[in-house]
């Protein structure tokens, strides 16, 4: 579905954000991309949806292809119409527009395909949005805003959704709900998903395959089942400590010793 090969991204010609990153999202799978703040996760997604130009970022080298076609010269709006939808970090709903108009805005994705937007399906998924459809979206709660962001993605009927930290700033219960939706979109509609997260626990609960990135590079990858077993990932991302009886580790040791040893040497 989506293949990123060895891309380099610089902002303002000076700041290098990605250095030779490669990843792949196979058809119908959920792939998660984990990493700490500033590792370049969001930049990776923006590169894939071609939004970098708006922020003065350039893709220097490498290839990105969506459904076998290079996307580098395709405008973002055209990409959405081809079936690649980017749910951006912080939800980015249109706060001054009504819930309904937010969904109408997403229906532009269907223009080229001559398809009709299916608002009922969104309201079916999220009954709460239906109750509030005339309201100004800025006054929705955080969880409802995230639902709206998902709703917009559903209207566009994408084949691939790039999802940037859907759990950001939400209560655990809402996060659970959101991730159920992700699972449902994947299993019912066969949508492939590239999920960027900091919350590895929930990301692993839905994903098939995982990538871990650091300073603009992939440092580890594998099936989620395998990654879950990895000791470093357990301690860095899943918060599983040494367990019963094991000596307590100082966080500094973990950070400086283990990480260097495994990933950067």
């Amino acid at each position, binding site marked *: 579905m989506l293949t990123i090969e060895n891309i380099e991204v610089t902002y303002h010609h000076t700041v290098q954000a990605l250095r030779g990153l490669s990843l792949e999202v196979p058809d119908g799978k959920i792939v998660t991309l984990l990493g700490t703040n500033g590792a370049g996760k969001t930049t990776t997604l923006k590169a894939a949806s071609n*939004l970098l130009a708006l*922020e003065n970022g350039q893709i220097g080298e490498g290839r990105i292809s969506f459904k076998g076609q290079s996307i580098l010269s395709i*405008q973002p*709006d055209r990409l959405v119409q081809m079936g690649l*939808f980017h749910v951006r970090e912080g939800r*980015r709903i*249109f706060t*001054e527009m009504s819930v309904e108009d937010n969904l*109408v805005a997403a229906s*532009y994705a269907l223009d080229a395909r001559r398809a009709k937007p299916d608002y009922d399906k969104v309201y079916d998924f999220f009954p709460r949005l239906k109750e509030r459809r005339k309201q100004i979206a800025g006054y929705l709660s955080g969880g409802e805003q995230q639902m709206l962001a998902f709703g917009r993605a559903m209207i566009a009927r994408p084949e691939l959704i790039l999802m940037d930290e859907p759990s950001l700033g939400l209560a655990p219960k809402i996060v659970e709900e959101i991730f159920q939706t992700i699972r449902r979109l994947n299993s019912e509609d066969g949508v492939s998903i590239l999920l960027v997260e900091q919350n590895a626990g929930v990301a692993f609960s839905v994903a098939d395959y995982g990538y871990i990135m650091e300073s603009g590079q992939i440092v580890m990858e594998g099936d989620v089942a395998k990654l879950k077993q990895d000791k470093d990932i357990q301690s860095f991302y899943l918060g599983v400590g040494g367990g019963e009886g094991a000596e307590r580790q100082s966080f500094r040791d973990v950070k400086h010793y283990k990480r260097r040893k495994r990933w950067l040497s």
Partner: protein
Amino acid sequence: MGQFTQFAINGLMSGAIYALIAVGIVSVYKATKVVNFAHGYLIMFGAYFYFTFSVIVPGQSWAPDWLASWQPAWLLEMREGLPMFSPMGAVLDWVQNVPRILLGIAGALVCNAIVGRIIERTLMRPLMGQSIFAMIMVTVGLISIMSGAASIIWTADADFVPHIAPNAPIRFELFGTMIFLFGADLVNMIVALLIFAGIVLMVRYTKSGVAIRATAEDQSTAYSMGISVPKVFSRAWVLASTTGAIAGAILATRNGISPSLGLFGFSVLAIVLMGGLDSYIGVFLAAMAVGVMEALTQWRMGGDWAEIVPYVAVLLILLIRPHGLFGSKEVERI
């Protein structure tokens, strides 16, 4: 009271023209966040294009006679024996001019749309992704380019241009006083108000309106919804330049044509700031208020003051409400 109504109505009529000019500034600002300092000069181009197509072109030797003055037999017949300055005479004068008025308006609309598009494509779009300030400075530079270009292109002495509507005097009674208006002014006002209302309804209720509002709020997210942001940009510029063409044609009939028409844009910019840069309703009320204030000061204090008093009022309002009367601060979730 009697004089008051008359002057207030005059004020509303010029207010409507201000609103028509303001709509272009607001539309470009809403879509692109660029305050277009050169809007007045777009209007000036509109006025000159109207002049070109309604006066210069029909006056050429190759142009058919009916274009300059349309005189079908029935018209001449009706003119027979009409007294000078009768309302009917004014209407008939207008009918003679209809072909060149239509050509003038069509020409102004098309040419100004092209100018707006060229500005957007060659000057604004390459700056997308850069700071907004860069684009705003480009519009400031455009002022010199456009006023210079106008004086190079249109060397002919400005002449009278035909009124858009029959300029028959109209008298009627309102609140016990006789009101006296010119038909053309009244029609100008109605045209301006209709265009304004049309744009406001379009932005609020149509799908293209959703695209404009989405772009206004968050360009890159609008882009990632499948909305073609560059297309929204160029539509906003074309909208501004075509409404500007109509405004220019109207101003040309009211105030005559000269490169100084462009200065008009600045007074309207003050009105736009007073109403709130991104609020059509606020700008409409501000335009009407300034129009009426101008007319009333002219009546009470004389023409010299008419240019000052309304703008002092604008300043005062901005001191109290820096975002303008209806300018939006961002919606915040509580």
